[in-house]
């Protein structure tokens, strides 16, 4: 009940039945554990209008508040108001979130959902069983942080393949990575500037051809490309999985590694979204200025302009390309038109829009390993939507999505090639050059 002093007749609508109260804090201390936690001011931004619900993939599949942005925020708020605890149920609600940030994009009151969820994940970390914590620690703090371990891991996968759990096996691509990108690549003519490439961990180990194509395309368009050897994992997966302190350490090292470049370009959407947020993560002028120099590759190409290839990548005929919007491009970086505009420059390319294309494919960092059921349902949906476009190629600018989509299509018995969009541009340049040589 609202407090209207003694003897004051409360206005109509101020007296509510027993068992109800006007929303707002109840005067109890917050039940957060020590360490990072969602802030009260962030939590207060949600007015519970529900407009985000239909855009949340996990709500769409389950129909339950606990799997919706509004419900997850309400659960966080209950802990902040001292009405609930960080317990197994709370952890379950948070874990099922894809961190795709579709909700953030559609929320009219600008709720900073990603930031709140990262902090909520820090809160639930101590709840995990020791085994789960060990596996995460191994993956996030040892393997991804150290290139050589990751590369060893990749080299060992062919041997380990028969022993891997089936779901990991279907996801991990086979084949070797080929040559690493050069430390410095000079353009043919005078350089327009220096671009530093964030090579990415997963991208660099399993999708190195995309990195090589990136370097060729940038150099062809007049940029000096450097790939600083001291760069480390960007820290996105760590930040999304409750390890903000590890993420901050990694961010600081990258700040130093990329100091000399005019632009920092990222070809993997998940990394790009996170690197752009170093300013938020670390605070301070240097980090903020750094974030301002970061661009997604396709965004950069569109902004700076690229040479129009004289020829299509696949002979004369048209090719139908289904463009996959990675959540970390579409939502977190608001990149939608740029990659399409670049692809449209390629002769013969016809872009097919994927039905419900703004729905997460379920890869979501480690989600596909940690929450296999939900992830599989999203993967099937995505594969079916892509197949319905009758495209022959899928363009995907995020390695996690690429793995997931390739696995989904394979399971559905579809033969589509899944490429980074820059690889199409690179192929078109190569095809044009080959033709010029023929003449």
């Amino acid at each position, binding site marked *: 009940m*609202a*407090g*209207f002093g003694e003897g004051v007749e*409360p*206005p*109509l*609508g*101020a*007296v*509510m*039945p*027993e*068992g*109800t*109260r*006007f*929303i*707002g*804090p109840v005067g109890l201390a917050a039940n957060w554990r020590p360490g990072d936690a969602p802030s009260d001011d962030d939590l*207060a*931004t*949600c*007015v*519970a*209008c*529900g*407009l985000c*619900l*239909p*855009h949340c993939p996990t709500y769409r599949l389950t*129909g*339950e*508040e*606990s799997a919706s942005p509004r*419900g997850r925020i*309400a*659960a966080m708020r*209950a802990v902040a108001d001292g*009405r*609930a605890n960080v*317990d197994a*149920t*709370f952890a379950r*609600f948070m874990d099922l979130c894809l961190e795709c940030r579709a909700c953030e994009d559609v*929320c*009219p*009151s*600008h*709720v900073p959902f990603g930031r709140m969820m990262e902090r909520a994940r820090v809160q639930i970390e101590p709840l995990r069983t020791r085994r789960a914590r060990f596996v995460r620690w191994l993956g996030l703090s040892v393997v991804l942080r150290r290139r050589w371990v990751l590369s060893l891991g990749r080299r060992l996968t062919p041997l380990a393949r028969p022993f891997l759990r089936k779901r990991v096996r279907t996801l991990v691509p086979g084949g070797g990575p080929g040559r690493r990108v050069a430390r410095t690549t000079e353009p043919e003519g005078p350089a327009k500037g220096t671009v530093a490439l964030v090579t990415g961990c997963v991208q660099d180990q399993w999708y190195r051809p995309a990195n090589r194509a990136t370097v060729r395309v940038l150099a062809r368009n007049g940029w000096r490309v450097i790939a600083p050897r001291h760069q480390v994992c960007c820290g996105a997966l760590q930040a999304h999985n409750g390890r903000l302190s590890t993420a901050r350490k990694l961010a600081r090292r990258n700040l130093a590694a990329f100091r000399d470049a005019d632009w920092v370009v990222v070809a993997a959407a998940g990394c790009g979204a996170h690197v752009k947020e170093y300013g938020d993560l670390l605070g301070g002028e240097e980090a903020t200025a750094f974030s301002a120099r970061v661009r997604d590759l396709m965004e950069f190409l569109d902004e700076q302009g690229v040479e129009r290839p004289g020829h299509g990548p696949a002979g004369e005929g048209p090719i139908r390309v289904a463009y996959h919007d990675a959540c970390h491009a579409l939502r977190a970086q608001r990149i939608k038109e740029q990659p399409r505009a670049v692809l449209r420059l390629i002769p013969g390319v016809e872009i097919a829009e994927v039905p419900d294309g703004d729905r997460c494919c379920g890869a979501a960092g480690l989600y596909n390993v940690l929450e296999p059921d939900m992830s599989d349902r999203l993967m099937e949906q995505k594969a079916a939507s892509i197949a319905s476009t009758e495209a022959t190629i899928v363009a995907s600018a995020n390695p996690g999505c690429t793995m997931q989509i390739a696995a989904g299509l394979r399971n559905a018995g579809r033969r589509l090639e899944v490429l980074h969009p820059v690889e199409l541009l690179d192929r078109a340049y190569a095809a044009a050059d080959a033709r010029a040589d023929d003449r």
Partner: protein
Amino acid sequence: MADVDAARRELEEALGTTEVLSDPLALTLYARDAAMVEGGCALVAFPHTVEDVVACMQVAARHALPVVPRGSGTGLAGGATPIGDALVVVTSKMDRILEVRPEDRLAWVEPGVLNLDLANAVAPLGFTYAPDPSSQQTCSIGGNVNTNAGGPHCLAYGVTSSHVLAVDVVLPDGTVERFGSEAPEAPGYDLRGILIGSEGTLGIVVGACVRLTPEPPAVRTMLLDFSAVKDCAATVSSIIAGGVVPAAVEMMDHGIIVAAESFAHAGYPTDAAAVLLVEVDGLPEAVEAQSRAVENAARDHGVRTIRVAADDAERALLWKGRKSAFGAVAQIAPHYHLHDCVVPRSKLVDVLAGVYEIAGRHDIIVTNVFHAGDGNLHPLLSFDRRIPGTLERVLSASEQIVRLCVNNGGSLSGEHGIGLEKRDFMPLMFSEVDLGAQACVRAAFDPEGRMNPHKVLPAGARCGDFAMARGTDAAQAAQSIPEGSWI
């Protein structure tokens, strides 16, 4: 005290363990809708079929649990807010469109189908579902039926009750009844009409037969921008007095324009005192003539600029700002409170001036975004509940705003319903006998008073009051209602 544990076991048996929630944190998430009051519940159930709903009702009846139906929980009056040891029955998993019959211009849907999903599903056939609440992407047809929802386009097309031909309802004792029929006019009392807008107090809607409306051949959307609120409001009356009924006439004042623009980037003029978003539709010639009439009315009242949407994309953008306005007010302050009173269009100018004056006197920020064509106000009071004394000022201001509207010949609610937040205002409009009669209707459906208790009718309203006043045998009948069942 009801045996909640036994009820839970029986529900789990009938629906499956995953479809029943009893964890305290999970229950918290169902303690409120989009309004300002929070309650609590004992159990939440997710039926998938009509049989599941019947099972819910039977279990609740056996254990004397109150039942609160819930769709998407976007209600703005606390209608879906449960109290005490209630069983909340959520329809979100009954979300199938059962049948679309373009030749009969109707569709049968389950209650959990989202309004916009239905509209999108019939769009390829050249139809739409006309009532379009601003929450249409999220709100459910079941919720729309139970609040008799309106929307911008209800000015020309009518609110939900004009678009629902029949409803299938599970009554509190577990029986299933159909009210209304596929044929437009059923003989006898219009019980369908009673069900529509009943806010979950009579039964649970498990199916609805909705009317499909053909898409108009031509549409034009215009944004008119004014430097004074009163000119903007006066334009509304002039348009309609001039014989034109546009498909929609929505008004937004300065505060809303700024908040909505920052989200939607629709190019709204952020220096305007108020804008009107007007849409006219019909045959191309009619659209032409109507837009000319609208433009003339606006010029008579000193419109600054008139922007006509050039294509569908621009039209969608203009609407996006309007439809996200409620959510966008959180940029002003974290909490909002509003009443959706309706006033005669001719009173809009005076009432709006009064609303600003009341808010100013209470030192509360007010913004206005509303269905101006129907005179359906939505004065949004924005505040931070965490600052002591603010809530009290908001509640005082709210009461005065509602009284102002009622005194100007208005009504309590245009579309959001009465729910919990407005029930104590009912006596401003209805006599004791009126309220008693309404309680009798309610008791006819729900004699035990277990359906969404505490909602709609004020605390004292009882069927007996009506019967007493009439001095008839009904008084005796009314005595048979169990003691203590507040209905």
